């Protein structure tokens, strides 16, 4: 794609995991029996009225604040009118020209480059119900019947719209991943693509460097970060090929098919509806005053980017810091262990390496293991004292994770403690030197290379429990003293 540049903007929908729905008291519960978490309001029965959920509003403000948005003082809800069987009122309550949050940004890193992606707006809307079509394809056109489940109807949905600041599929992926991390760190949603609690739609156009924006297509139905990246890459290539062959890009919505790895046309702009937005008369303007705004900003947790930088600054490898922050609970445990005085780099490596590997191998979560910050601290102290080799420490860590007990108890029980007492090791060193007079001679002549061989002999003689550092020091002393 030399000479070409892609311009990408991403619209993200995040389902908020509030106690109750956006405009009624029905619980937000996934996987409930169809049409059991419904009421006159979320079924759109005649006469029912929406009442906004303050918890959801608090959450969207947190999201906006995390992107350093301006929180709008007099935000409004609008009606977006269109007919669809799973939309009970045949209009959706959403926001239009006065959303809760505007003008923010999200910093990402991709291809070794830092990029600031503008956030145009963060607004609130209600989700629709679900249609289940009785047909082979699961699509409405050839369905004999359709079933409707309104459990999802009215679940609070946050839409985050980025500026078209993204230029590559890799950046798009990095943006989506970082956005998920931010949302999770706020505790407002688990933002899982697989479960549909987060959804990314991409607006893509291409242009020759320096030209005006090209015609854009919107691509939907990406079910993983990988498919987001693939779909965008495919769409960029498709548009370039189209223009290079003398055709034009059509403004339309396109559907990503994971199986074929292609996008196909869903509907063109001409078919797109006029939504006839107007202010929702059943709701009053929401007054988010300065006190409220200040409280939201003050209540923000440490955001992932800040946390990664802070942890890396303690000496932990950047990649290890990223792994822990991505998981969240690992970073929490890291912070706790470090606050107990543990050596940061050691604990960081264990958590991002051994612990992650253990969790993956055993298909479990950190919360389901028995690992505590105190364990990490004890383990780090033992390694620092030389009571445990780094290899033995990994073994002990795995046993702690499995719930066998505290590190010291495990090390003692399995005879893993290292001998680092010079008195105890002196005899072993003497014996090895006596058995290898020629090697000793080499050392004495100033050739220190064979020292490793001698250390190995002592290790073997002690069944691997000797502290190699201490042994090495002893041998060196003997050689120079002799």
């Amino acid at each position: 794609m030399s000479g070409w540049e892609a311009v990408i903007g991403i619209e993200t929908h995040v389902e908020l995991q509030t106690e109750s729905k956006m405009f009624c008291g029905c619980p937000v519960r996934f996987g409930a029996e169809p049409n059991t978490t419904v009421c006159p309001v979320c079924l759109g029965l005649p006469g029912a009225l929406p009442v906004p959920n303050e918890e959801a509003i608090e959450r969207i403000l947190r999201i906006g604040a995390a992107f350093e948005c301006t929180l709008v003082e007099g935000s409004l809800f609008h009606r977006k009118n269109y007919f669809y069987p799973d939309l009970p009122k045949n209009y959706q309550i959403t926001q239009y020209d006065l959303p809760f949050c505007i003008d923010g940004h999200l910093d990402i890193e991709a291809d070794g480059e830092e990029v600031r992606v503008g956030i145009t707006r963060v607004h609130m809307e209600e989700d629709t119900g679900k249609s289940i079509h009785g047909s082979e394809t699961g699509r409405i056109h050839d369905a004999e019947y359709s079933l409707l489940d309104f459990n999802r109807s009215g679940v609070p949905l946050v839409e985050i719209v980025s500026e078209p600041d993204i230029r590559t599929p890799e950046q798009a992926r990095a943006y989506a991943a970082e956005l998920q991390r931010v949302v999770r760190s706020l505790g407002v949603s688990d933002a899982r693509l697989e479960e549909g609690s987060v959804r990314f739609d991409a607006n893509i156009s291409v242009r020759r460097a320096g030209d005006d924006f090209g015609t854009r297509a919107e691509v939907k139905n990406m079910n993983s970060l990988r498919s987001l990246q693939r779909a965008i890459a495919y769409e960029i290539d498709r548009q370039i090929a189209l223009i290079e062959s003398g055709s034009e890009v059509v403004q339309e919505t396109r559907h990503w098919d994971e199986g074929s790895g292609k996008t196909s046309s869903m509907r063109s702009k001409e078919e797109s509806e006029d939504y006839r937005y107007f202010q929702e008369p059943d709701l009053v303007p929401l007054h988010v005053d300065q006190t409220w705004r200040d409280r939201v900003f003050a209540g923000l947790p440490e955001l992932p980017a800040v946390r990664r930088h802070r942890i890396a600054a303690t000496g932990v490898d950047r990649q290890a810091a990223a792994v822990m922050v991505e998981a969240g609970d690992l970073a929490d445990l890291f912070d706790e262990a470090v606050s107990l005085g543990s050596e940061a780099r050691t604990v960081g490596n264990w958590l991002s390496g051994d612990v992650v590997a253990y969790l993956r191998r055993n298909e479990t979560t950190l919360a389901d293991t028995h690992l505590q910050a105190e364990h990490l601290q004890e383990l780090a102290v033992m390694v620092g004292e030389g009571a445990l080799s780094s290899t033995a420490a990994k073994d002990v860590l795995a046993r702690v994770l499995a719930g066998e007990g505290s590190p010291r108890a495990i090390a003692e029980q399995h005879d893993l403690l290292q001998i680092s007492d010079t008195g105890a090791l002196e005899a072993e060193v003497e014996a090895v030197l006596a058995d290898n007079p020629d090697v000793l001679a080499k050392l004495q002549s100033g050739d220190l290379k064979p020292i490793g061989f001698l250390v190995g002999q002592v290790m073997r003689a002690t069944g691997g429990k000797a502290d190699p550092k201490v042994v090495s020091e002893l041998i060196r002393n003997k050689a120079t003293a002799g």
Partner: protein
Amino acid sequence: MSDLADLTVSEAASSIRRGEATSLEITNAVIARAGVTESHLHAYLTFDQDAARAAAQAADAALAAGDDGGLFHGIPIALKDNMTTRGTETTAGSKILSGYVPPYNATVVRRLQDRHAVILGKTNLDEFAMGSSTENSAYGPTRNPWDTDRVPGGSSGGSAAAVAVGSALAALGSDTGGSIRQPASLCGIVGVKPTYGLVSRYGLIAFASSLDQIGPFARTVGDTAALLEVIVGHDIHDATSYRGDVPPISTALETGVAGMRIGVVKELSGEGIDDEVAAACRAMYEKLAAAGAEVTEVSLPASETALSAYYLIAPAEASANLARFDGVRYGLRVDGDTTEEMMARTRAEGFGPEVARRILLGTYALSAGYYDAFYGQAQKVRTLVRRDFAAAYEKVDVLVSPTSPTTAFPIGERTADPLSMYYADVCTIASNLAGDPSGSIPIALDSAALPIGFQIMAPALHEEQLFRVAAEVERLAEFRQRPELATSEVRPA
């Protein structure tokens, strides 16, 4: 003594407490009255005698047990059929809701039941409250008790006719552009549209959400104020419901108007107002002045464009509010080969012509390219109307005018000409746009023996002033006439 169905609410309440009549006896008298009048009027869509008698017996038992719900305890009342009643069919006068039985009660219904009021049934209305004559009901028109060849007004024509004739002692209606006041005027009773937000709209089938308001009908000013006091108050189920303390309502009924500043609306006193109506109102202005009020003329310039603004805003909101009637979940369903076809056929068959006209009008007014010229412009007029009222209330305490430019018109006279029908609301619409309280009080009969209503408008939350003037108007007018249908000697056996 006279028929129990002719008692006012306060008379009935006193009789019950004095042991002269039970709620069941009063309810039975009203049921008997309806048995005679309904064949002439068709005020009700649903009339549940058994449920009413059971509720009356329960009210009598509760009172005997010391549980007194207040003035409306055991009083038989009627509800306009656009308020949802759990277990009782609620149609909003539309074929599209034929057979629809709501699973929940409107907040006003709960409040009435909490006070042990006896609900008789659901009254007729123009389909989805769109109309000024009750001729737009899918279930046939209601007739005016003063002249059954004429309309009772609308859209709450059923409630107004029932109260006028004694087939209910009081009733609730809803008012979007005059739908309580205009039928009250045409039927010779009292009807009040409260301040927007004072009464919960939860369970009121929406016509135009920013204008709709539920309000009371009764035969006296005092009963009307008392019924309003039962239904007001903040409701957590209605985000637009007023959160402050309930303002005083019936506290100044006996105060009189001495020293009050009363403004006669200039734009509603001359052209377009029937001569007899204008003359009756002028006579009342003079009586009010004689009673000590300072009566002056006040101009509301924006009221001339208010009607046009209303007929953009109300249909625009209605076009969205009525979108939910699609055959998918409840009410009428007309099958089609596809879901879209089913929805389109259901709506084409389910809605009457006036409702269809307003949905089209509203859809058009909100459409891209037309929004600014129509809906946007109408909202600006609405702001001007509010400003006019605010400026007027700097100078006067209340505003007065005729309620309706004419008395009851013949059935069928205006159905072919929507604009002439829309003009019936010319005096009432501005209060809805402003969100202010407004009421109609009968003051006289015209030469055809049809009632003339007098409108009183007050600033938001100043119901006390409205009722203070209304009570004085009631005393000055000495309007005691009842329609012949309500007097036993002429009622057919």
